[in-house]
C-alpha cells in the first residue's frame, strides 16, 4: 500500500519523463540521417548517439527530471493537510521514507535504462548497430548518477516545506555542485557526476571512437551509492525528529 502511495505521488512526473525520454530516443534513431542537418560535421552513428543522447540534450533533460523526481514527501503533505493521515498509518516514519526513496530510485533506474533498451533495439531497423554492451554500461552510469541527483532533490524536500522551494533549492544545489567541480582543486577530490555519466575526459571513454572501453569506475560508483544510501538514512533520521 505504501509503495502504491509513493508511486501515485510521482506517477505523473515519471510517466511524463519516461514518455519523453523514450520518444526522443525513438526520434533520434529514426531521424538519424537528419543528423547531418543538426551537426556541424559528418558524424559516425556512435558519435551521433553519444553527442545527442549521452552527452547532450537527453542527458541534460535526464539530470533535471531525476532531480524533480526526488522532491515531495511529508513536509509537502503538511501543506496539503494530508500529513496527519499519512502519519496515522500504522507504519514508522522510517518506513515511509525508505519506501519513497526506493520507489524513486526504481523510477530513476528505469529512466536510465530506457535509452539502453530503445537504442540497440531500434538501430537495426534503420540499418545501424548500437551495441547492447555500450548502451547498458551507459545505463548503469546514468542510474547511479541519477540516484545521486535524485538524492539531492530528496534531501532538499526534508528541509524546505514551501511550494516549489525544495525544487528550486535542489536545482541550485545541483548547479552549485556543477560549478564547484569545475574548480581544479575540487575536481581532484570530488567526482563530477555529469562527466561520469557522459564519460567526458574519463579513462574509460575513448573520444576517438565515442565508446566506453575498459573497466567502469567501480570505486567512484560504489562511493556514490554509499553517499546516496547515507543521505537516505540521514533523511529518515531527520524526518523522525520533525514536528508535523
Amino acid at each position, binding site marked *: 500500500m505504501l509503495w502504491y502511495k509513493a508511486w501515485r505521488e510521482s506517477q505523473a*512526473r515519471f510517466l511524463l519523463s519516461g514518455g519523453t525520454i523514450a520518444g*526522443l530516443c525513438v526520434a533520434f534513431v529514426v531521424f538519424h540521417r537528419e543528423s547531418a542537418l543538426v551537426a556541424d560535421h559528418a558524424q559516425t552513428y556512435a558519435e551521433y548517439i553519444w553527442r545527442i543522447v549521452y552527452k547532450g540534450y537527453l542527458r541534460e*533533460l535526464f539530470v*533535471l*527530471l531525476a532531480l524533480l523526481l526526488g522532491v515531495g514527501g511529508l513536509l509537502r503533505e503538511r501543506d*496539503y493537510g494530508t500529513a496527519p493521515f499519512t502519519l496515522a498509518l500504522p507504519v514508522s516514519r522510517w518506513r515511509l521514507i525508505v519506501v519513497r526513496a526506493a520507489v524513486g530510485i526504481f523510477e530513476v533506474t528505469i529512466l536510465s535504462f530506457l535509452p539502453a533498451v530503445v537504442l540497440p533495439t531500434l538501430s537495426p531497423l534503420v540499418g545501424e548497430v548500437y551495441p547492447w554492451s555500450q548502451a547498458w554500461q551507459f545505463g548503469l552510469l546514468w542510474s547511479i548518477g541519477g540516484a545521486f541527483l535524485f538524492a539531492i532533490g530528496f534531501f532538499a524536500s526534508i528541509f524546505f516545506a514551501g*511550494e516549489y522551494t525544495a*525544487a*528550486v533549492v535542489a*536545482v541550485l544545489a545541483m548547479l552549485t555542485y556543477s560549478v564547484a567541480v569545475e574548480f581544479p582543486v575540487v575536481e581532484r577530490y570530488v567526482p563530477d557526476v555529469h562527466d561520469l555519466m557522459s564519460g567526458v575526459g574519463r579513462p574509460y571513454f575513448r573520444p576517438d571512437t565515442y565508446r566506453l572501453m575498459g573497466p567502469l569506475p567501480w570505486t567512484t560508483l560504489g562511493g556514490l551509492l554509499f553517499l546516496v544510501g547515507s543521505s537516505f538514512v540521514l533523511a529518515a533520521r531527520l524526518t523522525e525528529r520533525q514536528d508535523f
Partner: protein
Amino acid sequence: MLWYKVWQESRTRFAIAVVVLAGFCLLATLVHRKLGPLGSGGVTSRIHDLIYSGTAKGTFAVLSIFLGLGGLVRERARRTLTFTLALPVTRLQLIRTQIGVGLLQLALLSLIPVSLLPPLSQLVHEPFPLSNTLHYSLLWFVCSSFIFAVAYLLSAIFEGEYTAAVLCYILLMLQALLASWRPLRPYRLNLMWTMAEASRMPWNRLLMLALLTAAVFALAAWRTQKQDF
C-alpha cells in the same frame, strides 16, 4: 493586498534566485581566477562564458519556470482556493496580479547583472561596459517572460505539483533541439541563443516573443476563467 498575497507566495523562490544570480556575478568577477587560467578575452570573456552564455543563463531560464508555477489550480490542491475565490475581486484581477508580480520579479532578476557586473569588474581593473549588461538584460527579460508565460499556462492546466515544471522544461529542451535543425537554424529560434545574442539587438525576434508571451498569458487567463473549481 492582492499584490502582497502573490508576493508572499513567490518571495522565497525569488529571494533564492537573487542570491544565486548575485553569486554568479561575484564568481565571474572576483573569484574567477580559481576557475583556471583566463583566455585572451580576460574577465570580459569569463563573464560572457559564465553569465551570459553559460551556467547563469541556464539557471535563470530554469528559475523562470519555477517563478511561473502556481495559480488557482495549485490553490485547489492546497485547499486555499475557496478563500481566494471569495475575495471581492474577479479572476482576471487575480491573474493580472500574478502575471504582474512575476514579470516584475523577472525584470529585477534580469537587472541584477546590470547592478553588479560593472562595479565588480572595475574592482578587478577590467571594466565590463554597462551598455553590454543592459543589452543582455533586455534579452533575458523578454525570453524569460516567454518561459514564465508557458509555465504559467501549464500550471493552469495541470494540477500535479511538478507536472507543469517537468513539462515546461521538456518543452524548453525540445525547442532547443528543434531550433538546431539546420533548415531552422538561420532563424535562431532557440531561446537560449536569443538570450546570449551578442552582436546586435534582435528587435524582430523580441517583438515576436513579446506578442507570443501576451498570447500565452491570454490563453492562461481564458483557461482559468472557464475552469470549474
